[in-house]
């Protein structure tokens, strides 16, 4: 069972990972967007690290903790990806509202809520070459594994593996939404920065 203590640690690891990814994400985004993804994500990362500074007690409301993290993240990183991730955090918060403990099925519902939130806020579909191309299969793989009763570690590995495959499967595609869509066919053959971010974040969260 997970408490807010674990959530806090996970958010902190995510924040640190975002700082590490700064240059790589900037480069990937420069190749097909405006080259600022690393910049905004590192600001979001700093906000998460600052947010997770204070101690928490195992009995705290996980939902509230996640929602407030989303607001802090949006304030620090109001970019496309920043707003999407903020939305994800807020939707997870809504899903976990009132909960102090999460079991594996609850974790799967959280990840589904995040995925749906990103879809609704950004209005992109699978195959548009966005973060969703990694996130949707990852979320599905996780839920399926949990439903099949697989141990959490194994489900997490399946999730990350599905995200990787989704990321790589999106390489030949053409970006269909956001800044990258203006680049048109020149995006074909390139890694979408959002999918890379997704894989890295899921790795950090599940490690």
């Amino acid at each position, binding site marked *: 069972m997970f408490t807010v203590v674990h959530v806090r640690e996970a958010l902190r690891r995510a924040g640190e990972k975002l700082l590490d990814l700064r240059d790589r994400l900037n480069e990937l985004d420069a190749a097909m967007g405006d*080259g600022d993804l690393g910049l905004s994500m590192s600001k979001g990362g700093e906000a998460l690290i600052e947010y997770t500074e204070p101690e928490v007690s195992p009995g705290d409301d996980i939902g509230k903790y996640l929602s407030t993290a989303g607001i802090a993240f949006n304030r620090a990183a109001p*970019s*496309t990806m920043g*707003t999407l991730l903020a939305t994800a955090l807020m939707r997870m918060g809504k899903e976990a509202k009132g909960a102090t403990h999460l079991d594996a099925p609850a974790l799967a519902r959280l990840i589904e809520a995040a995925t749906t939130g990103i879809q609704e806020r950004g209005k992109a579909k699978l195959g548009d070459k966005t973060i969703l191309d990694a996130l949707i299969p990852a979320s599905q793989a996780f839920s399926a594994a949990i439903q099949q009763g697989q141990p959490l570690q194994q489900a997490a590995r399946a999730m990350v593996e599905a995200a990787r495959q989704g990321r790589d499967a999106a390489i030949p595609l053409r970006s269909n939404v956001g800044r990258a869509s203006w*680049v048109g066919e020149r995006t074909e053959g390139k890694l979408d920065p959002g999918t890379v971010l997704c894989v890295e974040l899921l790795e950090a969260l599940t490690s």
Partner: protein
Amino acid sequence: MKKILNDPKNFVPEMLDGLLKAHADQLSYAGGDVHCIVRADAPVQGKVALATGGGSGHLPVFLGYVGKGMLDGCAVGDVFQSPSAEQMLEVTRRIHGGKGVVYIYGNYGGDVMNFDMAAEMASMEDIEVRTVLVKDDVVSNKDPEKRRGVAGMVFAFKCAGAKADQGGSLDEVEAIARRALANIRTMGMALTPCIVPQVGKPTFTIGEDEMEMGMGIHGEPGISRESLKPANEIAERMLKTIREDLPTASGDRVAVMVNGLGATPPEELYIVYRRVHDLLTADGIKIHRAYVGEFATSMEMAGCSLTLFKLDDELAALLDYPARTPFFVQV
């Protein structure tokens, strides 16, 4: 990085602080946050309020058009980055004069999502918000709904702002913004990249003798990278591309904007304008007003954009209406 700044992290707040000090007679800010720029006399009671917002690095866009006869407020983001939904809401609250608020801003992912959030929050506070997206960049997508917004937004600010100043209703001001934008097209080209202060290196690389037609104002790649052409050819191609998308014929009346992206001197912009003027005039198209200068920039990027605005009688009159902001004065 050859920039005159202090800590790159403070680039935007220091810029805003300086700007608010230089223009204290015309501008103020809301919610204790210098990113929330509003007219010094906001709210103007009984007037429809206009707001915009977007990333920094494009002066005079966006905040430069806050002032009498144009916009009431502007949420300012970091360089090339959207302001947050909270900041937009702060501006909305402060400028609302009881007749609703029209958001007019460029069609960029981060901005759209945050403004949508802000509009949802504003409606919960009983402020009626209408959203008009600027999508004037002809070459950014074949689908007109997916195009990005560039310099043409200034004409939309001007006409909608004039309509609001004349007492237009929320419906009327929104309708004018839409009608103006339906008749506005822009195309740009760039010769050099720019540098985002916190990134510290150029947004892209380009050969010493190359240009990029269709380049976006954040350095988004355009439609073709090619050897630098003479000004006349550049002007002709931009005009041709625009006119294929916005049919114009003898007897039509237009406003023309030749906009510099930052480093290109006005002298060069006038050489481009000259060719555009000659071509339009030869086709019997009347140039009602010409705007040549820097209206929407990308820091120190070299290059220019051309905007064509097809006018009807009402749009022409609204364009002619006086306005006064720190960056735009028309008498």
